[in-house]
């Protein structure tokens, strides 16, 4: 792992994507998150740090616990980029449907 804080690097890893998905549903502690993975606490913390450095996760303290939550707005950067391709192909696929319907 480099020192990249890039959002695209952060979501490259399937475990981190799963973490994001879990924390999208509701904020959770490291202990709760760990229980969903076959990983050490250290490994989960490390993944959370990468996500946090990329701005994908925010955390707050609640008593003794630290709670983590996904910041959806950061994921939107990636989504907007893919939207360009999506718009192009979806509109072309619509047109293909019209062409097929019009051909004998």
């Amino acid at each position, binding site marked *: 792992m480099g020192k990249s804080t890039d959002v*695209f690097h952060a979501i490259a890893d399937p475990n981190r994507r799963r973490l994001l998905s879990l924390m999208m549903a509701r904020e959770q502690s490291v202990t709760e998150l760990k229980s969903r993975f076959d990983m050490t606490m250290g490994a989960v913390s490390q993944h959370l740090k990468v996500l946090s450095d990329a701005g994908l996760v925010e955390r707050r303290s609640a008593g003794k616990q630290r709670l983590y939550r996904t910041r959806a707005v950061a994921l939107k950067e990636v989504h907007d980029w893919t939207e360009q391709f*999506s718009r192009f192909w979806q509109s072309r696929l619509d*047109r*293909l449907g019209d062409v097929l319907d019009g051909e004998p």
Partner: protein
Amino acid sequence: MKFELEFERVYPHPVEKVWKALTDPRLLGKWLMETDFAPVVGREFNMWCDDGEGGTDRYICKLLALEPPRYMRWSWLLDGSQHLGETEVTFRLEETGTGTCLSIVHSGDRDPKIIEAFKGGWPWKMEILDDLLGQ
């Protein structure tokens, strides 16, 4: 940045008919772009489309693989963006009970801003993000 985006659509038409629309330049011109495509593996072809500002964008493509009537792969490069590297487009057709499922996968390295920002590689699909964003 490496990317892989997949689009899928089912059409109520037989495989052969959909295949023809993917490989006949007259029909390609009607739904994708004006083109001088010919179904010869290894051959380069062009596609032209309106750039939205009164000019024309040209895409330089090459037919990389062809297995009628189910599989085809093109390289795909917007003229003037050679420094970004090629992308590839793969077409797959599959019969379904009601017609034909067309899958298009567009993959490669693309956006300069993102290539700058990103040093590693990562494959992923659009659906993953859609899941995460709850769309």
